[in-house]
């Protein structure tokens, strides 16, 4: 187990490096540069040139990349081009809210999709099943930004029950209850998208397992239907579900850009949007690095969970 873990972590290093190279190239290929974004276009060219010198944009691209890498090796992510704040600070401030939003949505999604999917599968072709597969279709089809705006309109503007955006109330908010209140709408929007997709996964996976011979063996023993479903079937059905839920985590981190915009949620999605618009290279590079690390980490986590859930999967070396 430990050698396996070590090997996976060592393999992650070149993978991460490769990703940063690709990111850097794409970023450089994108039209526009940070200086144009920062400075009034009527500024004299000498001043622009000076600014470029200052930001290190005068040297060739590969030199810029290696300088960035050198900084990284020393634990430095550099400074933002637009706010001049250390990138590590910017990300550190923003990652918490994003993780909160992502995991709240994932948790809520699991909490709904699992039981509904199981019920749909065990009561296949009943009215409940049709209703749920129908709703899951609706859930997948509604664009999150549209649902977000709709929810803000109804629950914030019309009913006034929930805040329309932000993470805490400006008039002395910031407690746990206050944060949860702000969390409710954006998390719901993300959760709806997850639930819509995952109900189908859970249902399909469960249906697959329900056909297996070992469930007949369990019934032949005289086991109750409840035990057949939740003891014998569910653990087997969970294996593929684990993978799809795991792969949802990086999607949630990146995919919440839009939702964070709509709800003014102070997470890395918003930071990423601002950095893209201002061509804030150091921040973008760091954000990409974080995103790549999250993807690799969740993959590893899913693999480890898999071996815990399925006795046939063992990592020996």
């Amino acid at each position, binding site marked *: 187990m430990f050698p396996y873990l070590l090997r996976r972590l060592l393999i992650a290093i070149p993978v991460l490096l490769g990703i940063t190279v690709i990111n850097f190239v794409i970023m450089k290929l994108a039209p526009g540069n940070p200086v144009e974004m920062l400075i009034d276009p009527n500024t004299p060219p000498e001043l622009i040139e000076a600014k470029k010198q200052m930001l290190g944009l005068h040297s060739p691209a590969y030199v810029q990349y290696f300088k960035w890498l050198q900084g990284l090796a020393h634990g430095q992510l550099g400074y933002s081009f637009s706010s001049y704040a250390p990138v590590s600070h910017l990300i550190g401030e923003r990652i918490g809210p994003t993780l909160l939003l992502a995991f709240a949505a994932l948790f809520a999604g699991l909490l709904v999709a699992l039981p509904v999917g199981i019920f749909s599968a065990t009561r296949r072709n009943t009215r409940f099943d049709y209703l749920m597969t129908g709703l899951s279709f609706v859930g997948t089809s509604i664009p999150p930004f549209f649902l977000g705006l709709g929810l803000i309109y109804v629950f914030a503007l019309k009913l006034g029950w929930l805040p329309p955006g932000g993470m805490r109330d400006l008039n002395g908010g910031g407690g746990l209850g206050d944060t949860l209140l702000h969390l409710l709408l954006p998390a719901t929007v993300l959760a709806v998208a997850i639930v819509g997709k995952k109900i189908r996964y859970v249902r399909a996976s469960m249906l697959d397992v329900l056909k297996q011979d070992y469930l007949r063996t369990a019934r*032949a023993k005289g086991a109750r239907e409840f035990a057949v479903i939740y003891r014998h079937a569910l653990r087997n059905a969970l294996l593929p579900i684990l993978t799809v839920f795991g792969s949802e985590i990086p999607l949630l981190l990146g995919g919440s850009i839009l939702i964070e915009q709509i709800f003014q949620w102070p997470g890395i999605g918003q930071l990423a949007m601002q950095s893209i618009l201002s061509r804030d290279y150091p921040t973008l590079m760091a954000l990409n690095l974080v995103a790549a690390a999250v993807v690799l980490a969740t993959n590893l986590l899913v693999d480890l969970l898999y071996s815990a859930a399925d*006795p046939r999967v063992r990592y020996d070396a």
Partner: protein
Amino acid sequence: MAYLLEVEELSVSFRTEGGEITPVDGIRIALNPGETMCIVGESGSGKSAAALAILRLLGEGGRISGGSVRLNGEDLVSKTGAELRSFRGKEVAMIFQEPMTALNPVLSVGSQLIEAIRLHSKRSRKEARRVAAELLRSVGIPRPEAVLGEYPHSLSGGMRQRVVIAMALASEPKLLIADEPTTALDVTIQAQILELMKRFRERSGAAIVLITHDLGVVAEMADRVAVLYAGRIVEEADVFSLFENPLHPYTQGLMRSVPSPDAVRGQRLVPIPGSVPSPAAMPAGCRFHDRCPQADRRCREEEPPLEPVRAGGHKARCWAVRERLPATDATVASVGGGL
């Protein structure tokens, strides 16, 4: 005398996209304690469906569409829920064809075995574990304590089938239904598994219904044999009469299609032409007529009844056999017993 298992006119239907089909159509089985009945037939003859129907394990789309199944006089067809569960595993246990898929891959051997034990007896977990280890030892599994903690994938097919058998024997059932228990195993393991089932029968006096297509297994295990063709029993006899004197053309065909140890060198095996008709398109008349070398017009139009045709309760469903054998002989058959 009262039979242990009495299956009367049992029919099984399945809903399919092309409408309802009836793969088992009016079969009758009567079994005394300690007896072994083999049900023989090709794939598609309905033998597995019949076995599953006894325990009401037909699964989605399948139902018993007629007849009754009685165990010790109690009707299993009308039972539901908890009543049925108290029979499954306790009074009637089942061994399945595929040991590779019959065990749950994510639960340890021990937990599956202990579950079977505790479902029908009030034993503590610890005590059930001890019993489980004993059961594994009794089916010939070495180091039973260690195997309890292992998962099915680390055991061979033969070992898994032993575990399945141990699970089936956990509550000392009065009836054991085995659906092709040795088909997926190699020959030496087959013999060991059959030996296990025999030992259990001798020790406990339980009855066995053994589903197979292997006439070698029949010769080894059976007291009585029912030959199933297209959902109907076409011939039924004690094992000696059947092998010495197969009457139905289908049974004769089956015998000719397997090699026999005293066959003449160079003698060819004769396959039965064609295949079992699909339950969705059953031929009129005798269901075997289009593969039968002796079929005449009557066979195509009218289905023969399953009737005693020889002494010892040897029954056949065939017009030709009826004509060959005098009716008086048949009358004797219904009162005569044994060989």
